[in-house]
């Protein structure tokens, strides 16, 4: 449904996107992860026909985004990372305006708008002025706006940014509903555990380069020969931390009051040596084991060593 081939975008000297190759099947949810400035928004804008790539090709539903923008626009619903709403318009009028912009016949609009407001839980706010809505409500209204023309593909740039935990959960539930409706969704986010639950595939992008790409299940830190270890001690936490940080194989030590979590890059032999070292220094070790990794670990491990 979505495909990019060698997609590159340059802003002057800065290469915001380098040779990006993606392929997203119909009905799949693709999570796009990367730190600030990685090129997520740039990719999404190119896919939404808002930016001309410097080189490479991008297709949505088989249509070239540069050559057939009209067909692509019919297929996609795009939600930017930041967007505004119009003052002096009510929620229904706001949606009605976009219905008009998509040339939806007037007699269909009333029912359509009611359905959309229902879907995003804003039925009660139909007659409120949009600029009086809260951030979370505006975000949901923005999502409803994307859905006006029943697009097959949704391009959502950080739809959960700026939302409180409850609003995030609400947003996620709506997205799950959309997934169940068979939409192909590409979604970018900084909040990884959220994506894990929602996405089929995940791509990690860093400084314009796709550095990891695969199904959620395949995403393990093992990819980089790293394991996540945990260590619990009874006492002498400071001494233990010093031993850990001194080891050449240990990275990103996270000390939670006598409970440590860290990345380990060495072999099993190195692990045994580390434990022996801890014990020989008289550290009262309670447990020393491999931890179940989470997506946060994956993200940190994969984007390791790249600045900004």
């Amino acid at each position, binding site marked *: 449904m979505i495909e990019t081939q060698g997609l590159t975008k340059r802003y002057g000297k800065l290469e915001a996107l380098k040779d990006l190759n993606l392929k997203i099947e119909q009905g799949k949810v693709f999570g796009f992860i990367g730190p600030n400035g990685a090129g997520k928004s740039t990719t999404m804008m190119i896919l939404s*026909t808002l930016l001309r790539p410097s080189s490479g090709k991008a297709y949505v539903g088989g249509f070239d985004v540069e050559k057939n923008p009209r067909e692509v626009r019919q297929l996609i619903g795009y939600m*930017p990372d930041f967007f505004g709403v119009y003052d*002096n*318009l009510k929620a229904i009028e706001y949606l009605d305006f976009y219905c*008009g*912009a*998509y040339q939806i016949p007037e007699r269909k609009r009333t029912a359509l708008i009611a359905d959309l407001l229902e879907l995003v839980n804003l039925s009660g706010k139909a007659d409120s002025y949009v600029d009086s809505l809260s951030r979370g409500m505006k975000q949901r209204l923005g999502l409803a706006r994307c859905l006006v023309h029943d697009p097959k593909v949704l391009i959502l740039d950080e739809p959960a940014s700026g939302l409180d935990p409850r609003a995030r959960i609400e947003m996620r539930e709506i997205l799950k509903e959309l997934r169940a409706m068979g939409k192909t969704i590409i979604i970018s986010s900084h909040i990884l555990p959220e994506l894990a639950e929602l996405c089929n595939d995940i791509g990690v992008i860093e400084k314009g380069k796709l550095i990891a790409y695969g199904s959620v299940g395949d995403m393990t830190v093992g990819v980089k020969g790293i394991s996540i270890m945990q260590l619990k001690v009874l006492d002498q936490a400071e001494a233990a931390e010093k031993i850990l940080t001194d080891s050449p194989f240990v990275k990103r030590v996270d000390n939670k009051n006598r409970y440590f979590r860290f990345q380990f890059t060495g072999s099993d032999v190195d692990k045994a040596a580390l434990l022996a070292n801890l014990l020989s220094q008289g550290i009262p070790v309670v447990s020393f084991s491999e931890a179940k990794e989470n997506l946060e670990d994956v993200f940190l491990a994969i984007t390791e060593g790249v600045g900004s």
Partner: protein
Amino acid sequence: MRGFLTNPVIIKELRERFRTGKTAWILGSYLFVMGAILFGVIYVETANKVYFRPGESREIFILLTVIQLGMIGFIAPALTAGTISGERERQTLNVLLTTHLTPFSIVSSKMLTSLLFISLVVLSSLPLYSFVFLYGGISPVQLIKIFWFFSVNIIFFGSLGVFCSARFRRTGVSTIISYGLTFLVGVGTALITFFLWQFFEMMEWKAVDSDLFPFLFSINPGFVLAEIIGEKVVPPSLTYFMEPWILFSILYLGLSVFLLGWATRVLNPLRKKRLG
């Protein structure tokens, strides 16, 4: 082209504009300024006289049209210079561009609603003219020409503002530049003409024989208005190769089309290369 009242941008603009106090405020202050000047002049003119003479009604008419021309130059940029940059600043432009609205339909609907508003403001001042007409002094043909001339001005200064708001990202910058260009067209061309005339006199060149001056006099709205009303501002020996108001209309309507075309181009996110 789809119907005027089903165009979503026009409906939205009308809703937005009518719901804010801004429109009423502009309308009110426009009428107030026009009225204040008019009655001020009448008061001063008639203070020492017993009755009101038709000859003076003509003067007042001229005064009214000049003020009105000035007001168009003042109001058109105010109403248009923020139309597209405003969408950009509110971060609503990108979303608009991903819909089926083309850059052309966005520019043209913004332009149409702006024209509607400027015309509304200008037309609302018609009652002020009414009592001047009672005393005559101006012919119906002149009146139609003036009406046409105002329309051309509204279209041109409106297009200029719309163009600036598409070309410049910030409404502030766009507003300043539209006023700057409006000033250049309104006053700058007159100054240039004046200085060139002086220069020709100084060099003892025959200014009246050159084609340059009829052209220069025809591109300044002030001179053209004077010509329509029949006031002799221009040296009488000068011969026009085309009636000034016709040349003026062709030139400025052409420029308007060009500016709107350029605005459309600037708005297209997939255009080949940057202009300007």
